[in-house]
């Protein structure tokens, strides 16, 4: 069951490279959060009602509702529709994303042989999720897309920690989620300010006033 979910997750990653519409990225984040919820539910060892509620809060409420809500509001306020002039052409970004996924599968095969007691497919996919987030940041110019890329990286580290660290104390996991939420909130506020201060059509390229 987890394998199927992981494959769907990797398809969601691939679809990140297909579009340049910003709200599609955010919708993609919601799908990722839902998949993460089910993966966490199936992998978690202790299955009482408390842990289920906690996982629900961690994945669905924070990653699936609050973060997309902040991002959607930001997109609406700043009237961002699509990614302007991506750094890489469309076909190239699809190609690179597929390469990243293939790399993830190679890691999965390799770890299956060499590391014991590990869900190797999950390990590989999580590594390629982190790389996909980094790629999104490098290849796109809008600041909001960078925040989405950061969120994808966080999903990747979440998946990675799920496959390796057993029995993470819930208080600590909650701390991680709250940190991420606050980070996204702050980034949203800053993007609003940047929009009014800078002419934020060029995205990251307008932020060059500080240099030596």
């Amino acid at each position, binding site marked *: 069951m987890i394998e199927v979910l992981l494959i769907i997750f990797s398809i969601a990653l691939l679809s990140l490279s297909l579009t340049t519409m910003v709200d599609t990225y955010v919708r993609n984040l919601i799908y990722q959060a839902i998949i993460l919820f089910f993966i966490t539910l199936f992998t978690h060892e202790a299955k009482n009602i408390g842990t289920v509620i906690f996982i629900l809060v961690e994945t669905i409420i924070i990653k699936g509702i609050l973060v997309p809500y902040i991002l959607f509001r930001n997109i609406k306020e700043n009237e961002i529709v699509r990614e302007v002039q991506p750094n890489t052409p469309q076909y190239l970004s699809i190609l690179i994303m597929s390469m990243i996924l293939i790399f993830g599968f190679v890691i999965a095969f390799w770890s299956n042989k060499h590391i014991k007691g590990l869900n190797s497919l999950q390990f590989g996919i999580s590594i390629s999720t982190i790389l996909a987030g980094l790629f999104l940041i490098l290849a796109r110019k809008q600041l909001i897309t960078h925040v989405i890329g950061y969120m994808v*990286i*966080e999903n990747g580290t979440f998946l990675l920690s799920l496959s390796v660290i057993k029995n993470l104390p819930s208080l600590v996991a909650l701390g991680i989620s709250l*940190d991420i939420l606050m980070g996204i909130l702050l980034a949203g506020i*800053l993007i609003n300010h940047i929009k009014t201060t800078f002419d934020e059509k060029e995205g990251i390229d307008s932020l060059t006033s500080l240099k030596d």
Partner: protein
Amino acid sequence: MFEIFIIISIILAIILLLLRNNTIKYIILVLFSLFQLVFIFLMSRSYFEHTQFSNFYLILDSKYLDKFIFLDDFSIFFSIITSVLFFVSSISSINKIIFMREKNFSLFSSFMILFLVSLFGVIFAQNLIVLWVFIEATTLTSSILIYQDKTKHSLEATWKYLFICSIGIAISFVGIVFISLAFNSSSLSFIDLLPLKDIANPFWLELGFCFILIGFGTKAGLAPTHAWLPDAHSEAPSQISALLSGALLNTALLGIIRVLNILPDNVKGICKTYLLLMGLISLFVSSIYMSRSVNYKRLLAYSSIENIGLISIGLSLGGIAEYASYLLMISHSLTKSSLFIVSGVIKDVYHTTITKKVNNLLKFMPFAAFTLILGFLSIAGFPIFLSFFSELKLFYFLISNKKWLLLIIIVFLLLVILFALSKNIFNIIFAKENEYKASELIKVKVKKLNIVNDVQIASAFFLIVLTFLLGFYFPIEWKNFIIKLVSSM
């Protein structure tokens, strides 16, 4: 004890958000800084009384929270530095009473307290993931502090700081996961991991350390991931630059030290080589940028990168060099904070951060010029200052171990940096005003800001005198304490 401290600080932070009058908020902030100084003093005293038999001490006696927070030699060392710096920088934020609107000063003072709490969280964290959570929290709280001038530049600096550091810290989380994979243990607490270090998988340990070095190194300002540092330091209010440079960089370095501590000897060697490499790159990068810097706050920021580079070189070499780098940590924190506070005073009076436009400080503000000269002497490592002894010990180590190449590289880069620093700082202090003839205006300004400036410069002067006195007389108990830090590594 510690939970009371956290509760008091959070309540105070909320009260400060609600209050109106700037003077009252300033008084509360100073009282809080005094309170935390006393608190750290009491806590370290009780630590030394309780730990004759073990080298750590659980702060709380609760079953659940003891898993997350503890005290050991490292936390004592770093918390004392942080708490002294916080005390001085909250006193020196007196100029914000005049310059800031009430709403902004509320945010400023309340987040200063929260920033201190998150710094203490990193320092006292007993668990690798708890440490990660608090390092991310320091990024969040301090990014609000950096965006206080509400200018275009400060906005850009804040964005870069928040984003680059968040990515770096996310990368370091991957490193933590790899380290957990190597140990294959359910708990990630340092006490639990230490006995397991010889059966851990060396490949994953090395890979994990690399990720952590890059991640926490971003936060510590090690090149080549230092891009946020000059921007954030130059655009933040000067008290915040002082805190960032003196407290935050050290604290991020503590994360790297903690991970180095739990590595077995066969992995430690290669990991220390990576640290050495990053330190050398930091020295190199800062020497290049300092020699062409036109902005005095950026110059000081690059000097922080240089010092962190030197500290990590010392940490990676071990032995006396490591002892030297702990001394340098103390001296750099105190000196750089005082230099940043003085630079804030200069910025308030001259209204610019361009080095060429600031002339003849000796005539307008002799006390500030005197403090600046002392700070320069201390950062350059002149005799009797603490930094002199620490650099001397580093060179002694390099010579006695016959690492000639490393010695030549470090001395050459340090000379370049010294040249750049002295050129800029002497220009500020002595040069006659050429293009920028606003001396009458500056005189009026100095007169108007008299008390505020005097308080700020006095607090900076206090820090410099502290480094001077420590260089003059370093207590033997402290020396033994630092030697204990080195040998426990």
